[in-house]
């Protein structure tokens, strides 16, 4: 068993770390404060290939591994969780389902532009009445001969107002329950499709989270993704993969908060010594460090299984559950170790604490992860 980074991964880490430090970190506070989608960063990431890491070369991707992709999400999120989720939603929730379920024509049409970063991807499953209970889809798609007609509303969609390609779930046959849900590839600008209100959020404030509105939206016949009635399965499998990305986002946030806290507690003096010298600081930080490393192993193991083509659904759920809860704990304690300064915007830990919370909610709440894990555990 080899837990170390391969030579290729080491080279990749060198690159992504310096990119994150030099290009992403300097913008993080402003992106949060102004609730600004960092378009310039996305453009740079596109040029370097960061927007298409695990996509095969023949579809315009970089031919990298899932492992490399999640390392990128971790390193980006370590300095800016907004940038991390842009890459994660784009890669796991839009490109992955096209790669895994698309026809050759669909892959050739969409993947090269997505993988190069020229286009940004998004995924629309959640609706006002279909959150955790995603099967309650109210968006409908009706077969109108040469096209599909979509009606309905999606909410909380990451990347929405900057995306060009959307994977959208809609009901094609209500009588069949989840087997009546189908997946579609919808392009920005298709007639009857518009972007609705943008959410004002607690964290990842630079990420554009908006409504998608379909009013007799016309989608070409060939844009059905996968077989008719397989949309729910596609959505659930997509989320399995996405959870590894969000787990890495959480891991990155936790690591970033650790880094800041180690630095700060060594500098800050009270009672004549650095607060890092108090045993309370040391013991708590030791526990946090242990959890961060455990989270990293869970995340890497889930990614490894996906790379190997092994089942990884419960692994992804465990990685996301544990990494998200670790991120919340580490960031909350990081603020505590920073005292009053940590509560101000002068230090990044307050942002990290706000950013961490979302990792316990999207792509399945922590409760949902427990359902997935227990489901596997008690399956007969």
């Amino acid at each position: 068993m080899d837990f170390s980074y391969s030579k290729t991964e080491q080279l990749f880490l060198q690159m992504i770390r310096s990119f994150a430090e030099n290009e992403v970190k300097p913008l993080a506070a402003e992106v949060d404060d102004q609730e600004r989608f960092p378009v310039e960063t996305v453009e740079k990431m596109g040029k370097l290939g960061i927007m298409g890491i695990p996509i095969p070369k023949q579809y315009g991707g970089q031919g990298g591994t899932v492992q490399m992709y999640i390392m990128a999400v971790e390193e980006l999120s370590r300095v800016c969780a907004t940038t991390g989720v842009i890459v994660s939603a784009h890669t796991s929730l839009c490109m992955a389902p096209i790669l895994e379920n698309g026809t050759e024509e669909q892959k050739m049409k969409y993947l090269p532009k997505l993988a190069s970063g020229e286009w940004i991807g998004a995924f629309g499953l959640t609706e006002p009445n279909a959150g955790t209970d995603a099967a309650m889809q109210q968006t409908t798609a009706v077969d109108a001969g040469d096209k599909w007609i979509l009606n309905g509303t999606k909410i909380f969609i990451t990347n929405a107002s900057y995306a060009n390609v959307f994977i959208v779930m809609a009901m094609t046959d209500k009588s069949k329950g989840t087997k009546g849900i189908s997946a579609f590839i919808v392009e920005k600008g298709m007639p009857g499709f518009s972007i609705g209100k943008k959410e004002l959020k607690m964290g990842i404030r630079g990420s554009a989270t908006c409504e998608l509105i379909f009013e007799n939206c016309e989608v070409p016949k060939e844009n059905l993704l996968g077989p008719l009635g397989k949309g729910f399965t596609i959505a659930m499998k997509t989320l399995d993969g996405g959870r590894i990305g969000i787990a890495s986002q959480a891991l990155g946030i936790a690591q970033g908060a650790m880094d800041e806290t180690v630095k700060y507690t060594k500098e800050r003096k009270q009672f004549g010594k650095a607060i890092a010298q108090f045993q309370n600081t040391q013991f708590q930080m030791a526990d946090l460090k242990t959890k961060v490393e455990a989270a990293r192993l869970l995340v890497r193991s889930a990614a490894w299984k996906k790379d190997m083509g092994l089942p990884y659904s419960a692994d992804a759920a465990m990685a996301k559950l544990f990494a998200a809860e670790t991120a919340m704990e580490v960031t909350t304690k990081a603020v505590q170790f920073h005292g009053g300064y940590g509560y101000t915007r002068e230090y990044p830990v307050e942002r990290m604490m706000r950013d961490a919370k979302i990792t316990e909610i999207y792509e399945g709440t922590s409760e949902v992860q427990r359902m997935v894990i227990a489901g596997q555990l008690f399956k007969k």
Partner: protein
Amino acid sequence: MNIIVCIKQVPDTTEIKIDPVKGTLIREGVPSIMNPDDKGGLELALRLKDQFGANVTVVSMGPPQADVIMREAFAMGADRAILLSDRKFAGSDTLATSYAIAGLCRTLDYDLIIAGRQAIDGDTAQVGPEMAEHLGLPQVTYVCDAKLLPNGNLQVHKENEDSVQVLEVEGKCLLTVLASAFEPRYMTVSGIVEAYNREVEVWGADKIDYDETKLGLSGSPTKVFQSFPKAMKAPGEVHEVSEEEAVELIVNKLKEKHII
């Protein structure tokens, strides 16, 4: 255009810490990196490649571990990599190093050689100029900009202490460049994915034409007599006072130390 870029693996001196007790450098665990000026040199070569088309070959003399900087060069965009590695080169000073690398260059078809101005560990800034001498090439040092003119000559900006000289160089030449002038590009993801699938050619001394007495220890007239870390200076003191008070303070300090 065929460009050779000389790259050297060096310890990341910004990461080197001083042992507070012994006052010596702690080299253990210090990562090795591509020498910054050489990365600048590679960047210049790649810019020339982007603008005018070129074949970029990176060459290095060093132990097998230097492989990693060759991979990094591939991932940035280099076309070919040759690592000169042989026990015969052990103990080389700058003269023997430049002799060996010049010998390697002689076997290649090139129009331009780019070296870093200086390596951050050896710090002599001699290897580039010495190579030019071995090869009988014109050289421009401290280069901060270069472009290819329509007549095929290179126009080169050379940084002097208080001015910049613009020179035109005809024919083959050697440039030594400054890291500060050529912000290196990032490795690309696809370059990284491919880096370890490509071949770094490892050459022994037998691949070059050489005179045994000019290689390695025997070819090295410089003998290091002794090396020691510089004693650390005591930290300075900062006083924010008026001019009059400052004069008095300084005079008193100097008296205290029996300097005046």
